[in-house]
């Protein structure tokens, strides 16, 4: 019993070390990879433009729901004028970075894990290595660099659309004065909130992209599965670990910054 707990703990520590090494060598390959801007551009397209619809839709509905729920709670105390503050602080501090990251993991992260898993299966990654090309530099580094600015940008967009959704349900449907709503937004959010939001977005972006890339890149190591099953298992594992990672990292960052 003690032995199996010990060997499990050791294998987890080894896994974490391997993950750390993977991220370090991927970032270290920045200077060894040629024509990196073009690869980053493609990654921005995959993580940014292709995920735009889901960010817009989820952002709008999140804001609208916050507007509705917030209005009925604040109405009990005659404080509907604070609706803008409630919606904006909820979005900026917590909901936008977390939900945007979860949406991006669901779409871009899963696609990344599956793509790398298939490339591993079809020996494309081995082919890069035998050609003397850093497979991590070519396949992973552009995705990590792109995530560092796509996630904050998507989060900012999520906030903007969410605020608009909140004003839609609060002002247009429930009758809160738009001027009161927006002035409450401006008064509530300060630079510290925006900083916290961006720190979370960058952290979630780097963390989840690294997790998804790691899982896809090592799809051949999945025990008891090969081929398409291994790719499927790696993709599922990538999404589950990334989602848990977002929530865990959110708690840690919030406890340090608040």
């Amino acid at each position: 019993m003690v032995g199996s707990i010990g060997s499990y703990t050791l294998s987890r520590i080894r896994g974490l070390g391997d993950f750390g090494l993977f991220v370090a060598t991927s970032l270290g390959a920045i200077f060894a990879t040629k024509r990196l801007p073009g690869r980053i551009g493609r990654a921005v397209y995959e993580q940014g433009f292709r995920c735009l619809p889901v960010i817009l839709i989820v952002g709008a509905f999140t804001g609208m729901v916050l507007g509705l729920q917030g209005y009925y709670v604040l109405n009990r105390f005659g404080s509907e004028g604070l609706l803008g503050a409630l919606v904006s602080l909820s979005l900026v501090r917590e909901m936008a970075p977390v939900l945007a990251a979860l949406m991006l993991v669901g779409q871009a992260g899963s696609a990344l894990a599956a793509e790398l898993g298939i490339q591993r299966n079809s020996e494309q990654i081995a082919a890069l290595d035998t050609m003397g090309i850093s497979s991590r530099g070519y396949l992973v580094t552009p995705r990590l660099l792109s995530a560092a600015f796509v996630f904050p940008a998507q989060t900012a967009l999520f906030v903007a659309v969410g605020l608009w959704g909140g004003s839609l349900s609060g002002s247009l449907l429930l009758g809160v004065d738009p001027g009161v709503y927006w002035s409450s937004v401006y008064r509530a959010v300060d630079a510290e909130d925006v900083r916290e939001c961006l720190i979370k977005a960058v952290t979630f972006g780097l963390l989840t992209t690294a997790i998804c890339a790691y899982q896809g890149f090592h799809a051949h190591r999945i025990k008891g599965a090969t081929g398409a099953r291994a790719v499927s298992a790696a993709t599922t594992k990538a999404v589950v670990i990334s989602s848990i990672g977002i929530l865990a990292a959110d708690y840690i960052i919030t406890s340090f910054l608040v």
Partner: protein
Amino acid sequence: MTAANTDALLRVRALRKGFDGRVVLRDVGFAVDRGSIFSVLGPSGAGKSVLLKCLAGVEDPDGGEVFFEGRPLDFRERTVRDSFRRRCSFLFQGNALFDSLTALQNVALPLEQTTNLSRAEIRERAMQALAQLELDEHAGRYPGMLSGGMQKRLALARAIVTQPEMVFFDEPTAGLDPLRRNAVFAMIAKYQALFGFTALIVTHDVVEALAVSCMVALLHQGEICFSGTPEEFAASGHPVVQSFRDSPDALRATLDALRRGDALPQEEP
């Protein structure tokens, strides 16, 4: 590691590899002369692909020595690894082409990432390699839009675009019909003569490999049980060589026995 004789471009000595306690390669040794075609024959599961991956640095061998131009090849040393990979190319069983890149982009990839050539020079050299393999008309097409034979040629174009001294072929005819098998071996022989590279082929196609190779070795249960010229292979009385070489005759004998209604010969364990 000690220095090896320098007459061979590649020399393998006592190479060992296993997975999870199962021995795949057991003290494998052979030498490949510069400018020759060397084929490693063997049935499926004999460890041929693992051998090639150990030589290309995709898998780490458990023991043994590999010498390239007489110098020990240690993939843990970055300069040795980079130098070897600049001078060698590897053709994978499934071609390992990038399906999101066009034929031209696939061929240009190693030049883009490993040289300081300008875009125009890269394009020119990639187009030249495609033209040499009669694929220049398909430069803008994706690998998925090409036939199996064209994909094989595209993989070879990518392998030769860096003008390597040695090309490793991993089961180049796996899954192909006899006509296409002949065409692929003819293609290897033609371009080997044209470019002068040294070729190491692992395959289980005996007839075709004997026709194009200067030297052959037979890998059986992780060991080299025969090494010599195709003529020596054809004349060898070694039981494993005989059973591998004469497998079509054995099949014919079995079928004759079936037709006559005789009992099937006992299968070897």
